[in-house]
């Protein structure tokens, strides 16, 4: 466990090191970490506090403000379904219901086997293709509930997504 902690910390330091050249703020540092690791571990909070000369409490204040940060490792795959206005009008609610049903979830969250994380997204930027969802950051548009379920079922057994 200890050795894992050490390597994680080293990885965090590396991410922050390469990020340091720009104007490092608490938020930009957290974003850099989230991008690199997919989540913000406790060590990440500590290291960002060090880098930005603040305290872990300040960093946590920023981090906990944004629902898009996660604080535990993400699952192997991520599904984001857009529920922005356009997607909503063009059938997102039915897609959401179908996807949740396929995953056995009631709301945003991780499947019990930790294979898939389900998130809502307020806009995936592809309104012309609505309704849209993203599987591991790949966009799929003009979805029907059936098509969405098919994509999700296909994703279930596929190898873990690499960042």
């Amino acid at each position, binding site marked *: 466990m200890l050795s894992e902690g050490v390597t994680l910390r080293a990885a965090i330091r590396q991410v922050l090191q390469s990020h340091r050249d720009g104007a490092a703020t608490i938020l930009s540092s957290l974003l850099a970490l989230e991008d690199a690791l997919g989540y913000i571990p*406790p060590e990440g*909070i500590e290291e960002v506090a060090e880098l930005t000369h603040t*305290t872990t*409490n300040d960093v*946590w*204040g920023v981090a*906990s*403000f944004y629902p898009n940060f996660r604080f535990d490792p993400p699952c192997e795959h991520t599904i984001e379904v857009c529920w922005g206005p356009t997607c909503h009008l063009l059938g997102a609610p039915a897609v959401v219901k179908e996807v949740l049903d396929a995953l056995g979830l009631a709301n945003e969250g991780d499947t019990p086997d930790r294979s898939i994380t389900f998130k809502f997204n307020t806009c995936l930027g592809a309104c012309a293709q609505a309704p849209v969802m993203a599987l591991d950051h790949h966009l799929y548009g003009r979805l029907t509930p059936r098509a969405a379920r098919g994509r999700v079922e296909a994703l279930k057994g596929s190898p873990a997504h690499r960042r």
Partner: protein
Amino acid sequence: MTTDNRITLRIDDREVRARPGTVVLEAAIEAGIYIPYLCYHPGMKPYAACRMCMVQEEVEVEVERDGQKVKEKQLRPVSASCTMPVREGLVVRSANDALRNLQRGVMEMLLSEHPHGCLTCHRVELCGPEDICLRHVAVNDRCVFCPKNERCELKDSVRFLGMDLLSPLSYKTRGLELEAADPFYDRDYNLCIVCARCVRVCEEVRGDNAITFVERAGKALVGTSRGSSLLESGCEFCGACLDVCPVGALVEREHKWDKAVRVSRAVCPNCSVGCQLNLEVNRREKLIRAIPELNAPANRGQACYKGKFGLEFVNHQERLKRPLVRRDGLLQEATWEEALAYIAERMPAYRGAGFAALASARTSNEGAYLLQKFARAVMGSNSVDVDSNTRPALARALEQPLGYAAATNTLWELEQSGCILVVDANLTEEHNVAGVPIKRGVRKGARLIVIDTREVELTRYAHLWLRPRPGTTLSLLGGILREILESGLEDKEFLAAKVGGLVELWAALDPYTLEVVAEATGVPMAQIREAARTYADADSGAIVYALDNVAPLEQAAQVHALADLALATGNLGKPSSGLYPLVRGANAQGSADVGAAPDLLPGYQRTEDEAARSRLEERWGVRLPVEAGLGLAEALHAAASGSVKAMLLLGDSASYTSGELQDGYEALERLELLVVHDAFLGQAAQRAHVVLPATTFAEEEGTYTNLERRVQLSPRALSPRNSEARPAWQVLCQLAQRLGAKGFEFSSAAGVFDEVASVAPIYSGISHGRLVREAVYTLRPDPRNPLPTQLVHSDRVSRGLLWPCPDAVRAGAPVLYADGFPGGQARLMPLPEPSVLSATPGEFPFTFVPGRVLAQEERDVAVERVGGVNHIRRDERVEMHPMDATDLGLSAGDAVEVTAAGARLRGIVELRESQHRGVVSMTTLFGELATRLQASEDPDPMARVPLLSIRPARVEKGVR
């Protein structure tokens, strides 16, 4: 004082005068006009979050009506009065229906998340805890079950706004658990109204950032990083958040449910900062809470863990109530008559050098004055000192170069300093509130240089932390001094006009070259250069020092070196500069002022000074001993060797076992007569022949002089029941009279002080009467209006008087030496040869350097809850040089055991190239100490907070 620059504005048809730069809300508060507010708090920047203090500006505009131009009054849109600056001619309305409706709307929103069944009920004042509520307000939701019930600002505002019974009574229950596992605080965030006062005070005033806002929108609340315990979040348990909380969310755990019937002001007895506290007293005459006074000059509304939570000793059940006399080897209860007779019978035999007296760190000026008068006039001995005075040179060594043995400037000037040099001092733990202006100064741009081998809290804020090898601070200071002079950074004009001794100093500094100093101290040359430049270049440079871990023989030299630094750079006699000796003990400064020192008569007149002595002899009507007596260390030594046979102690002292003296208690055991006047049967009292019960600071009237020379009056706050305890001045009077002495016929502490003022020139203009008279009204409450509860305490505040105070008209000088030095010139003191450190191989080949900080961001901390109490669990790291580790056959990550002066510490080896050879250091968390203090069985644990002392040590391989 200066009212001429005040601005005139009108609030609700009342003309109000306000200081420029303030806001409308502050002007209203000062004028006694109540505008409800919840997030504003004096001493913090306006925040405008609660939207309660809304007002409207009234303007006159020209409008055309029937073709004619007429002037008409119009109201501008509403704005928050806490962010509306005052300006000449401003007209403000705070009390119209539109505003009230707006405020009620805001309040309804706040109440939607706060239990409010009682808040809006007309029976709120009538119901008691056992009453049946016809409205079925749940027990947990009732105001009578809120610890802040009688001091809730939300309640004040609700009642002021005349909120109706809200129906239904439902509100959003957060369902959060009470946070009660951390020391001293109970936090119930179900009651939080998210006004941000606590978060802001922690950041803005204390500079700790130990709490923050977490989450957002409907879920936003106050919390810590990942919900961690305060033990690891960087909390210093100063209680500032509790003091500003307007509701019951943050409260002191001790006496949580007790209601105050009375509030009395007192000066905190726990260190020499001299914080004024508002002591809340319940109907059983118990001290239940201490709330720092907002307008007190030394603390400005701040306190610390010792002041907030270290006064419980006053209520302790083990307090001595009656005198004890040793009969048949046992201390047995006696009457005052018997006890005084016992002493009077035996004491005269020890007249002369065989007698010594020690005042306690908490003895008032009156007690200390009479103690030295008793020792000198009655017992014929000059051996009188203060039991916390383990470092006699601390302030006294300033006398020779400058003139006065005291701090040169006042504490809060540090906030405006350009550069602050903190030398061998652990402010956060020992003079906590003195650290507040320093941290605030750093925020405003001051450069902070810390010189300390130990890692202490202030090193986190330091721009430059010089970490000399243990025991080499003097060399380092010599190096900095030489660097200043050599680089021409000195203040040549100041030196030429006001200072002598430059040639001698130059000669003495010859051996302190950069190379030699860097080699001896292990501090890189670049850092020494930078420190010299930073301090010398600052517009105003202040030096704060405590002589922690400085060898007794080097203490005077180190103070001289610091005085030289200040003199050479012209940092004396002007604001925000100077020297601040952090004297140890609440009234150690005052005790020395009034003559409780072996070589000083009251007012720093030498015992050898023929003229001064004969003046006093005439006044007291006795012959006085000439030669200086024994100080604290010598007196204990003499007691151990048998040359001092009788002692009179006022109070016990942590110094007797702190390691700075040898074992003091062992010395006391050898005395033929030991009289102890103390509130507890402490270690000293247990060895005494007679023990006299003492009142505490809260039960007696007295003056205390803080480290900035401020004489403050602490009135009697409590009248203990069923106790025969008496204040020191009274006991000394009775004892002296029994011994047939004249000049002890005092009936009050004020009378004693008048005599002090008449014999000590520096106190001439000070009297109890003047201290009371010159209290300033900071608030003129309008009795018809409800007041924000926490401001009620701030009605009348004495700002104390600074010495030297020559007459009853002038105030004392905040800055000493502004008009030159008493001797005409100050004197640069030559430094001794740099001492050569000799390695001490043998049993303890290493030097152990402890450190303690509030938080270590880079370290994982586990907090374990044992029996409902949080404890820190982590592997401590023992930092050592890689070569030392190799010599011991250790490598990084190995378990080691460090044995230092009896204590055994375990840790994990961490290798550091920057570590000095032969030094091992370990930095622990303050949270650990806080847990320990909270759990302590000691009746007065805050008086015995362990010092971070550097000790010889042995390092061995340990087992994991």
